[in-house]
Each structure stands twice: as C-alpha cells, then as structure tokens.
C-alpha cells in the first residue's frame, strides 16, 4: 500500500514537475493574465474543447464550454496556436507585458471550398451516385503536386491515384486497372489523343493552363463513351471568360507557357489561346560527347472559341496542336539505310466543334463534330547528303455525335444519342527521297467505320437505391479497298499457309463486328455517410496499337480490326464501399474489381511491324485478366489536405492460339503482363498555412515490373546467347520516390493585377536510384547484367508562373 502510494507520488512528480516548476517560476516573477474567447467565424457559437498551445509546447489547455480560457504567464513574447478538429488553426504572436484578452474566430473547414478535389467519387454526389470508379481531379490539385522539372503533368498526377500505374518513368501512357496504354480513351475536348506524351513519355501533352477538369472513368463508364476497352480519361478545356481579359503564363527550365482569355464580344464571344514550347537543345550541346547530337524540342498549342448565341444555344470550336522532335545518334540506321542519326518527328492536329442547344427545361442536346489527325515520322538523314529517308504513318479520325440529356422528373436522368466515326489509317510509307538505293514502299491504307447508339437512365428507385442502366450498341466495318488473305484452316497464319487472297473494292465491307455493351451501376445507401455500389461494364475496342516494345513508341503501329484481327472485348465487375466522415472532410473508399479481356494482341517471337502488309502473320490474340483491391482515404479540407491509397492488383495474360510453339506464349500458361505490379502505395500531403505559400510532399511506391530473365545460355560461333524460356518471370527492384514542392504565391503580398508565383520542386528528394530496366549483354562467352536508371538523383527545379487579370 505504501509502495503504491509512493509510486503514484513519483509518477505525479515526474509528469507535473516541468510544467509546475515553470509555472511557479513565472508566477513568482511577474504574472500577467492571458485570456480569450474562441468562436465559430460564421455562427458565432463558442467553441469548447479547443486546444490552446503556447510556444509549440506539447502541453496545452482547453477552452471551457463557453469557449473561453485563462492563463497566468510571465512577461515574454509568445506564439499562441488555437486549434480544434474541423477548424482551420489560428496562430498569433504576442508580447505579454499587460493583461491580454483575445477574441478569436476560427473558420469551419467544412464550409470552406475543398482544397483537394480528387476523389474516387464524384465530389458533391459522392455517396449518392451509382457510378463506381469515377475520379475527378481538379487542375488546381494537379498544379499543387510536385512536378518534374516544374512541368505540371496530368498523366504523372494520375499515377498518384489507386489503380493507375505505368511501366516506369518515361512510359508512353498509363495503365488503368490492368489495361494496356492503348486501351484508354483519352479525350481532350472530345477529340482523341493517340499519343499522350512528349519526348517519349517525359511530359504529358495536355496544356495545363487550358485544362479545366479531368474525369477518369476506370469503373462504370457512361454509355456515351466507347471504342476502348479499359478506361476513359475525359479532359475538358476551359471555356474562355466572356467578360474579362486575362493572361497567364510561366517559365520553367523546360518550357515556356502563355495563355490568354480574350472576350471578343462582351458576354457573347470569347477566345482562349494557349501555347507551350520547349526548345532547350542547347543544353545537349554542352553535354558530354555522347549527347552532342541529341536534339529535343516539343510544343503544344490550343485555342477555344466560345460563342454564347443566346440563352438556349452555345457554340464552341476548339483546336489542339502538338508537335515533337527528337534526334539521336543511331549507327547503321534501319535495315540497309545508312544514316548519320535517327530523327523522330510527330504531331497531332485536332478540331472539335460543339453546339449545345436547350430545347426546354428538361431536354437539351449537344452535337459534336471531331477531326483528329496524328502523324508520326522517322527521318533518317544520310551521310554526306541533304537527303532524308522518311518512314511515316498517319491516323485520321473523323467523328460526328449527338447526345440528348432528358430529365423528365426527379427520379430519372436520361441520356441517349448516336455516334459515327470514320477511321483512316496509313500504316506506313517509306519515302527514299533522292536515295537511289532504297525503294519507295507503302502499306495499303486501312479504312473503317464505327457506328454506335447509346441510352442510359439513372433511376432513383427509392431514397436508398439508385441504379444506372445503360446500353450501347456498337457496329464496326472494316472497309476496302483491301486484299484479304485466306489461310489454311487450323494452321498458324504465316506466309507459308496463305491459300488465297480476295480483293475488296473501295467502300466494300471486308469484315464487320458488333454487339451490345451493357453498362450497369447500382448504389445502395447504408446511412447518410456511407453507401455500397456495384458496377458492370462491357466495352469493345476496334482500333489498337500493335507493339513489341515494353511501352508503345510514338511511332508504334495502330491497327484496326479486320478479317483476322478480332476486336478486344472487356468486361469489368466492380464493387465498392464509400464513407464520408466529419462533415465530408474525410472520405474513405474501398473498391474491388475483376476484369477479363478477350482478344488482346501480343506479338510472335521476332515479330516485325515496320511496313508489314499482313499484321496477322506477326501477332497472336489471347486473354487478359486483371483484379485488384483499392483503398483510399482523402482529407479534403483544412490546413493539411491530401490522400493516401493502397492498391493490390494483378494483371495476367494468356496466349494459346494453337499447339505449336509459335502460336503460344509461355506454353499457353497465364503469365504476368508487362505492367503487373501487385502492390502500390501513393501518398500526397499539402500544407497550406495561408494562401501565400504551401508545401507539398508526394510519395509513391510500387512493386517492380516484370521482365524476362534467362534460364540458360547457349554458345554459338564463340559467342554466348541467353536463352529465355518464359516471358516476364523476373522483377526489377521495387520503385519508390518522394517529391517535394514549395509554392510561393504573390510574394509581394499586394493586391495587384499582376500576380506572380514561384514553385520550387525537388523530384526524387532522397535520390532513390530506381531501376528503369534490367538488361543483359554478352561479350564473347561472358555475360553481364546491367541496370538502366533514369532520374536517379534529386532533380531540383524552379518555375515562375504569373497571372494578369
């Protein structure tokens, strides 16, 4: 008993000693009274249990039920911090040389605008809409994330979301829920983007100052979208202001940007123009000899004309242009074309015209016309000559679509429409220029038409249940002129098994495919804060990339479905649980999915697609299955905002077209795809003490992607050659990286028309040497394994942005 008391005394002494001693000392010297009342800034209600801390001490005091506090302190300078969950903290510095009474109003975070506009659910309707796997990411959020070399990047930011990965740095696109890069429909103002990156994947092509919003559909895809098997990334360009002229721009190490919004006719017609260019070749010239002949430049520009015709009609015309040029040393050239270097040159030109018409309060219609052209070229400048041998290809897509929105009553939201797309593919031409030793070549142009009808209804069955029922019917015709081969039945498709070739005239359908694409969503509300959702999706893809590289190159070949290449069909099942906490400050989601895709394209060993007339002899078709669980928690408001997510996912492929070795991959067994990365963690934190500066940290971790390891070596003519029995059986090292950025807005703190901001970024803060690839080289009979690391040290950059209103 005595011992117990003694211990208690000791404990009390230990805990209280510092605080008590200090307090006693203070009071003994010259105490003043510091008191205050803490209230809600809007309601004026007193806030009880708010924490008052002095000089960042761990120990503090609480306000009472009337929201007041009192403390006696010695004369000194103090920093006082008042905080309360759900409120933005308040900081004040004071010199206590007399009794002070403070009157502090705290701002309720729940009533603030959301800082982080990113969620696995649509923001305001999070728990109530039946859609699953829809992520909206606000461009403001994207701009706050640390960007490599100061270039705000839409695709890199997307990779901070669960279910979105890539094969590594500098990959030409992203993989969404186990889909390949070309299975994503990327739309910029409704026009398709065939190559989403600049400089082989270093930067994405979307002009950040012109993008207003970005919707990623990786789960339930609305019936109005189709043509790709995995996901839809719908990016909208901002409408120009019809009232006020404004200018914004920026300078970074890589590129310079300028965007102007010009009201041409006040309240009627406005124009938005944006441009970005990077012409930093000079840096290479100063580099080591190895880089001397590298030239790299890129640019993109967009314009949008918006015309508010009257209350019921608006019209907009947008244009997008993107260009890239990259030159590298390459000895020998392609086949027997001897060139001094290899140049890649590719550009995109898109136009979108859109007419929006309100028929009545309940019905409106939007009609859109799209023209999209993508032209990649490889140029081979010849030795001692001005001549360049050119290998080029082209995709031309023209599309007309119309979409009705009809809201008959509170219980129904109906959307229906039709869509027609014409594709024209020039798969490859070789132009020798003045070179007499090379023949001009041309692969026949492919033509195709895709027609689609769609209808969708979002029905509120009862206050707890909402369903979204959508149906799309798509029909595709591969059109002549084309020569279609017939191969021996049951035999592999090779040059040796051709038995006949039939020619189809211009406009004649050589093959057609079609089918229904149901889209289903169901939401069931458990209570005001939480809901569960189910989703099912079927999508068909008639245009795809055939590539035998880890990530498709900008010059990779696109291929339409035809008599031998069947369209890809993907089915996705999703289920999710969603919960909002603390007046929507926090959001939590848990989603699981399973996806099966038929007719994925893979390449035969040794396949070559360049200027190949008959792609069917080079590829195999198989199955892919992907499944995963995604967890995400987001804090959307307050001084500290951000999110953290974890994903477990697998992507496995199976190619088993026949019994022969050349018709299977890995003996027809399931094997991990190039982007099968089971574990992934992303974290993003933003500290914004006030509107003048903010700090951001992002962390990302992912399992290393698979690569092919040798099972043995054979010796041939005195040289070792690795023998690879099966594809993708090894893994590169796990990837992780921490980035940091510090944004200082308006450093002069004055309200002027010109507002500048600085962004200081460190990419890969702790200099992790992430493996980009692992490869093997043999020298004589010996072999060595190498690793290629890019961005392997911290990359520091500074960018300046401005706004003129």
């Amino acid at each position, binding site marked *: 008993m005595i011992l117990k008391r003694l211990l208690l005394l000791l404990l009390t002494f230990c805990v209280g000693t510092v605080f008590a001693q200090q307090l006693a000392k203070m009071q003994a010297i010259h105490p003043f009274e510091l008191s205050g009342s803490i209230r809600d800034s809007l309601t004026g209600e007193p806030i009880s249990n708010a924490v008052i801390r002095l000089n960042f001490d761990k120990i503090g005091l609480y306000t009472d039920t009337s929201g007041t506090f009192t403390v006696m302190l010695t004369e000194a300078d103090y920093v006082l911090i008042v905080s309360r969950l759900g409120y933005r903290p308040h900081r004040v510095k004071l010199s206590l040389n007399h009794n002070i009474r403070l009157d502090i109003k705290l701002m309720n975070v729940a009533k603030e605008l959301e800082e982080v506009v990113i969620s696995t659910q649509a923001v305001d309707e999070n728990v109530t809409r039946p859609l699953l796997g829809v992520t909206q990411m606000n461009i403001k959020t994207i701009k706050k994330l640390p960007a490599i070399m100061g270039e705000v990047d839409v695709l890199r930011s997307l990779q901070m979301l669960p279910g979105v990965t890539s094969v590594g740095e*500098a990959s030409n696109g992203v993989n969404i829920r186990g889909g390949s890069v070309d299975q994503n429909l990327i739309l910029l103002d409704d026009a398709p983007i065939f190559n989403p990156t600049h400089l082989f994947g270093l930067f994405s092509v979307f002009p950040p100052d012109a993008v207003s919003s970005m919707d990623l559909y990786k789960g339930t895809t609305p019936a109005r979208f189709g043509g790709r098997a995995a996901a839809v990334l719908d990016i909208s360009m901002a409408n120009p202001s019809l009232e006020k002229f404004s200018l914004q721009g920026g300078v970074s190490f890589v590129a310079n940007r300028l965007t102007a919004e010009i009201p041409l006719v006040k309240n009627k017609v406005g124009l938005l123009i944006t441009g970005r260019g990077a012409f930093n070749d000079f840096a290479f010239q100063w580099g080591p000899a190895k880089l001397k002949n590298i030239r790299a430049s890129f640019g993109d520009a967009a314009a949008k004309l918006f015309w508010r015709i009257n209350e019921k009609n608006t019209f907009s015309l947008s244009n997008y242009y993107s260009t890239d040029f990259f030159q590298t040393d390459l000895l020998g050239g392609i086949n027997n074309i001897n060139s001094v270097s290899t140049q890649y040159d590719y550009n995109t030109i898109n136009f979108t015209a859109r007419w929006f018409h309100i028929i009545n309060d309940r019905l409106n219609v939007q009609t859109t016309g799209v023209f999209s052209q993508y032209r990649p070229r490889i140029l081979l400048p010849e030795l001692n000559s001005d001549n360049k041998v050119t290998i080029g290809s082209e995709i031309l897509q023209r599309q007309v679509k119309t979409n009705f929105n009809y809201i008959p009553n509170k219980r129904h939201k109906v959307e229906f429409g039709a869509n027609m797309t014409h594709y024209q593919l020039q798969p490859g031409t070789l132009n020798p220029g003045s070179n007499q030793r090379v023949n001009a070549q041309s692969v026949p142009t492919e033509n195709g038409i895709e027609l689609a009808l769609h209808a969708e209804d979002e029905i509120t069955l009862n206050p707890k249940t909402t369903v979204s029922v959508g149906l799309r019917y798509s029909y595709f015709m591969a059109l002549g002129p084309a020569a279609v081969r017939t191969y021996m039945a049951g035999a592999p498709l090779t040059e040796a098994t051709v038995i006949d070739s039939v020619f189809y005239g211009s406009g004649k359908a050589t093959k057609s495919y079609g089918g229904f694409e149901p889209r289903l969503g169901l939401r069931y509300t458990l209570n005001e804060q939480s809901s569960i959702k189910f989703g099912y999706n079927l999508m068909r893809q008639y245009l795809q990339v055939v590539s035998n590289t*880890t990530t498709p190159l900008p010059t990779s070949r696109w291929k339409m479905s035809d008599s031998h290449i069947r369209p890809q069909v993907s089915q996705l099942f999703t289920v999710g649980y969603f919960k909002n906490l603390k007046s929507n400050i926090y959001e939590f989601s848990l989603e699981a999915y399973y996806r099966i895709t038929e007719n994925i394209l893979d390449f035969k060993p040794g396949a070559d697609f360049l200027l190949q007339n008959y792609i069917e002899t080079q590829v195999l078709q198989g199955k892919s299955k992907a499944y995963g669980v995604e967890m995400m928690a987001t804090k959307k408001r307050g001084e500290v905002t951000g999110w953290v997510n974890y994903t477990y996912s697998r992507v496995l492929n199976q190619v088993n077209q026949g019994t022969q070795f050349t018709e299977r991959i890995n003996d027809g067994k399931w094997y991990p795809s190039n982007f099968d990365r089971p574990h992934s963690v992303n974290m993003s934190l933003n500290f914004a003490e006030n509107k003048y500066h903010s700090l951001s940290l992002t962390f990302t971790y992912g399992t290393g992607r698979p690569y092919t390891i040798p099972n043995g070596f054979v010796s041939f003519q005195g040289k070792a050659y690795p023998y*690879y029995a099966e594809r993708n059986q090894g893994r590169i090292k796990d990837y992780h990286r921490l980035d940091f950025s510090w944004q200082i807005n308006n450093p002069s703190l004055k309200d002027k028309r010109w507002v500048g901001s600085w962004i200081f970024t460190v990419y890969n803060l702790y200099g992790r040497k992430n493996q980009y690839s692992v490869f093997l080289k043999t020298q004589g009979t010996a072999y060595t394994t190498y690793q290629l690391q*890019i961005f392997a040290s911290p990359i520091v950059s500074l960018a300046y942005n401005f706004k003129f209103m």
Partner: protein
Amino acid sequence: MKKRLFPALLIYLQLFCLYSCVETYDVTYSLDANLLTVEGFVSDQNGATVSISISRNVERNYYSQPLKGCVAEIRSGDGSVVALQEVSEGMYATPATFQGKVGQTYQLHFRTPDGKTYESSKEQLGTVPAIKKIYQQFDPKGVLDKTGKIVVGSTVDVYLDFDDPKDTKNYYLWRWKRYEEQNVCITCDGGTLNFSGGTCVKINSRNPPTYDYQCANPCWDVFYNNEVNLLADDFTNGKSVEGRLIAKVPFHSYKGALLEIEQVGLTKDAYLYYKLLRDQSQTTGTLTDTPPSPIIGNIQNINDPNDKVIGYFGAASTRVVKYWVERNNYKDPILIPLLGRQANFEPITPFRPPVYPCVLSKFRTPIKPQGWQ
C-alpha cells in the same frame, strides 16, 4: 550569361543522368536449362556439317557438351537420303561427294542415343548473288573500351558491294574467318616451359614470371566473326547494295591478315531466326528494345511439341571470297598486340628457351592458308 548558365547546367546534369545511368547489376540467375542445340547448313559449295550438342546450365555456369552417337540423315526433296557420319564428337557431316543443289529442299532428321527423334522443317536452297567488290578503310578509333568512350586501338574496316537480284526476295548473312600470323605458341603462366615434355612447369616463387614461347614452325591463329551480320532486301529489292560493313580487323601488327568472307543466302525463316538470335544480344535497356524471346528455330521433336530445340538447320547458297587485309600504309595507328599485351619471351641462355609446336585446332593451324601473302 550567369543567369542562363545556371538552368542550362542543371538540365545538363539531369540529362546526363537521364541517358547514362547504366551500371552493372549484380543478380544471380538460377540457370537450369539443358538445351538440345543443333546448328548446320546444306550449302551449294560443299556439303553439310551439323553440330549436335547439349547446352548445360548449372547455377551461374554454362557449357556445351557434344552429343555423341546420334543417327542423322539429310532427306532431299527428290526422295534421296544421305546419311551423316560423325566426324568428330557431336559433329556430323555428309560424305565428300554430297553437294547441295539450288532449288532443292533439304530436311535434317536425327535420332538421339536416348531414342528421341527430331526433324527440321524443309528448307529450300535459294540463290545468292556474287560479291562485286571488297574494299577497306582505316578507322583510327576502331576499338573502344567497355565504357565506349576510350579508344583502345585502330582497325581496318572491310566493306563489300553486291547487286541484289530484282525478281526474288533475298536474305543475307555474312560470316568470316580471319588468319593472323602468330609466333607465340604457348604462354606459361607462373612458370617455364619444360624442355623435353613440352609442358609448363610451375616455379615456386613469390613473383613467378609469365613467359611466352615461340612456335616451332610457322603458325596462324584463326578468328571467326561472332556478331550476327544480317540483311533483308525488304527496302532495297533489286538495288545495288554498297558499303556493307563486314569486319573490323584490329590493328594487331603492320603485317597483313587474310580474310575469308562468306556471303550466305538464307531463306526467310532462317533469316528470322538469326534476327531473333541477334536481337537477344543487342539490347540496350531502353523501351525500344524488343523483349526477349526463346531462340527456337525449325527443329522439332516429332513426338513432343513441348520439347524445345535451339538452333536452325538451313539450306543456303554461299559465295566465298578471300581478301587480303593490308595494314602497312596507315598513319599513326594504335596497335593492339595479338596477345592483348607485349610478348614476354624467356631470356636467352644456353639451350634455352625451347620452342613449342603449332598444334592444329579450330583456332590455330600450321598449314599455310591458301591466299596467304
């Protein structure tokens, strides 16, 4: 200027890293494949030699074990069958009277001692045009070190021209053999050459010498190309091909060397196999690399499609030309001694040093090669 220099410098550093952070990676593969490896050609110049071996892989090591005692034959399209003789361990050859004919198909068929039967696809012997011209060019910076930055030696590069025929699809492979005069016939590492027995005897010393010994008779070392040099006429059909690089001959001495160049006309399938083989060893780690594939050719176990065989049995028309590589007319070449270092002969004392015979092997010959100047 300073203002511009700073960002430029940063980009420079970044790009430097971006493109050149290639390091060796210490990874241990568990090599366990035991692979039947078959290689051979029926040629219109001489008959066929087929090598049958097993590539064994144990942990980190691999070696090739000749497969003795196979029963092998070549079946022609005209129905005739030629049995192959095992001329040395794992090497099977046609009789001297046998010669491939243009237009004929050939198929390899063999049974291993453990009773498995294998067959190649039928390969048709095509034609190959003659070599029109062979010429050489001096490259003072021809050999670089492993990093690819430091010049180690000069080379004489040999090129050839030929006319591709217009009416056929043609696929080319080039091989060469090179003869270099060699006067060192043995090196005794840490010892001296025993006078009578012709063997090296170790010397017990902290720093034993390494001595080279001269050849007893004239001797030539034989080198073979080990890069797969291929061309398809896809883009150049019917054109004359000029300046095809065939060999980079290192500057071993000012004396000449004899190069035996073979221009081989392949079938498309054989070409694709060699291309696959070449692609396996020429990866650079960038995303433009084609992911590796098993190097399986046209030979199959007739009873078990899952039994994988490495290698290719082809039929090929060949043209062989001997070319004398002149090395004495060039200015300031950087020499690379044949041994990779200067020869270190044992000092002359009474009765010493002894000499060592030039022993005939795949890589050495005492017989003066035809065309040696």
